[in-house]
């Protein structure tokens, strides 16, 4: 197997995973606590990126391409998903004139 990088990285795998976990946590609590749909949406994207960071790190430290391949797919799908998601939010705003989640509660029992 051919090593991807000749030189050893300055920080170890745990450091990368820690950053990834931190990003995921920020995103997660953002989803749980923020009230603006757009911000919640950005937080969701943050969680997605946290997972891609972890995958890239795994790929590098294991010396395989699998993680990188995953990331390519995730980026592609994320692009499409952003387009759809933002469109929904815009449509929602046009219809309801608000994007605050506490006012979007029509599915209540």
């Amino acid at each position, binding site marked *: 197997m051919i090593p991807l990088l000749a030189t050893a990285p300055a920080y170890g795998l745990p450091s990368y995973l820690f950053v990834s976990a931190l990003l995921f946590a920020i995103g997660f609590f953002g*989803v*749980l*606590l923020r009230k603006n749909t757009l911000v*919640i949406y950005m937080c969701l994207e943050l969680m997605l990126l946290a997972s891609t960071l972890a995958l890239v790190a795994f790929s590098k430290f294991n010396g395989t391409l699998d993680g990188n391949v995953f990331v390519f797919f995730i980026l592609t799908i994320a692009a499409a998903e952003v387009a759809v998601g933002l469109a929904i939010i815009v449509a929602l705003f046009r219809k309801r004139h608000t994007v605050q*989640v*506490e006012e*979007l*509660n*029509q*599915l*209540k*029992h």
Partner: protein
Amino acid sequence: MLQHAILILLLPLASAVVIALFLRKQGAIASWLSTGVAGAIAAISIILLQHGERFESSVEWLRFGTFSVSLGIKYDDLAALMLFIVGFVGFLIHLFSLGYMHDDQARARFFGGLSIFMFSMIGIVLADNLFMIFIFWELVGFSSWLLINHYHEKQSAADASKKAFIVNRVGDFGFLLGIIMCYWANGTVNFTELGQNHVFSTAVPLLLFCGAMGKSAQMPLQVWLPDAMEGPTPVSALIHAATMVAAGIFMLCRINVLMVPQALEVIMWIGTVTAVYAALCAIVQRDIKKVLAYSTLSQLGYMVAAFGLGSIALEHGEHKMVIAAGVGAAMFHLTTHAFFKALMFLGSGSVIHGCHHEQDIFKMGGLRKKMPITFVTFSIGVLAIIGFPWLAGFFSKDAILYLAMEKNTAVFAVLAFTAVLTSFYMVRLWKITFLGEARSDEAKHAHESGLVMTLPLIILAVLSIFGATGWFGLGLYPKLAGSIAGLIPEAHGAAHTTILLVSLAVMTIGGGAALFFYKSAATDTLEEKFRFGFSMLTGLKESFDKVYDYYVAKVQQRFAMVLNFLEQIVLAGAIIRGLAGFAGLVGYGARAFYTGSLQAYAYWFLLGAALLWAYAAGIF
């Protein structure tokens, strides 16, 4: 020839379908179509007879594993004879209906009903197995219901049709059990295969006889037939006198091979008791059609009794052979009865039509001069049924009486007494209706019916005169009777003289008594002079209805109410409402999860993910 048989079966069905789909408002076209088809049926049945070929053929219809139901046609001597009666008498009655029902609003429905009846009846006649017979058996029940109910805005007609249907259901339940048991015991219900090989059993023929008991109105299921007279008179003639009620006798003859002595004994006594009971009831009836209805019941009892008397041994010189004389005598009487009873019913129809729908004989009188053709033909019918020498009924009744004399003296005595009663009530009916002076405005203004109604009467009158002699002497239709003619018991020597004397004696005693006893008056002479006997007979007639009413109202209705209560509590209350309530409660709980807050859903998601992870990690 098979094509002819299929054609004769499907033609009336096609007619009924066309009338039901396209001609409901065109009464005139519908009536001509139906009558034309009936004429074609009569013509084809005669062509089949002329050709003389006998055949059978069947196709598989349904198969469930090893059990299969087939549809087939069995055209043997029995079917040939019956098909001729149904086709020919059916055509004449269609013709009569053209006149009788001319002013009816629902003519198309009436003639459509006649066509569907012809289809069903021919199906019974041609069926080659019991399952197929059962299908058409139910179809004639349906068409009978439809036609009794023709004047459905009349409550009594609606009730009568319901009664006929329900009483027949009781008999048909036994019939169906018999068919299933026959299949279970023999592995087949095909008549030919049963004839070759079958298991001897008393239960099978008796259960099958239940079907005949319902359809041919034998004791104790006879109650529906007199009420069925609520239908139009041609229907009474076709269905409730000449053909459908005779289907029970026909079916018995079909399954003759299955009979065992014990079963025959039961059948014989039921027929005998029905014959005498109905004859007693007929004496006190005021309605012209009711008299004829009880007379039909009585004659059907005669046929059933004749069938039950079974076979006799004949000695031809050295040879000794056993012939199924019961079948011969029953079918012989069925044939002649179809002619003269259809004649009398159509005659009564002509009288009712002429008297502007008056049916009470005590309000008629003096119709002899006003309706000469009806009078003459009706008189021939009366003479035929009371057994006037050399008329149709004379031969067929003598055949039955001779058979009874040979086999069972008690039955012979009862049947001879019934013959006395028959002459008595028929002459009473005849005298009060036609002789004397007109006793009401309707009768005063009576008029003879048109040719379309009198022509069938004349043809049937001719058949009532020569219908029986053709079997023996003239050889008019040897092909018609076929092997059945050979089965008719004939008396010889001293027995012949005895039977002849008995026959003449009963006719003279009964007829003479009625002729001298009854006056052509507006009241019943019997009711005036022998009030006690009269009320006894009336009570006898009503006793069955009273018992059934009591049973339905007091026993069955109470039982149904108990069942209804249990159903409300257990089934509807506990099971259905209980289960629904439980599901509702679960729903109330589950609704709490749907808060409408997006973040709450995210928490639920987190909780779910945590649980899933814990499960995957093997924590619980």
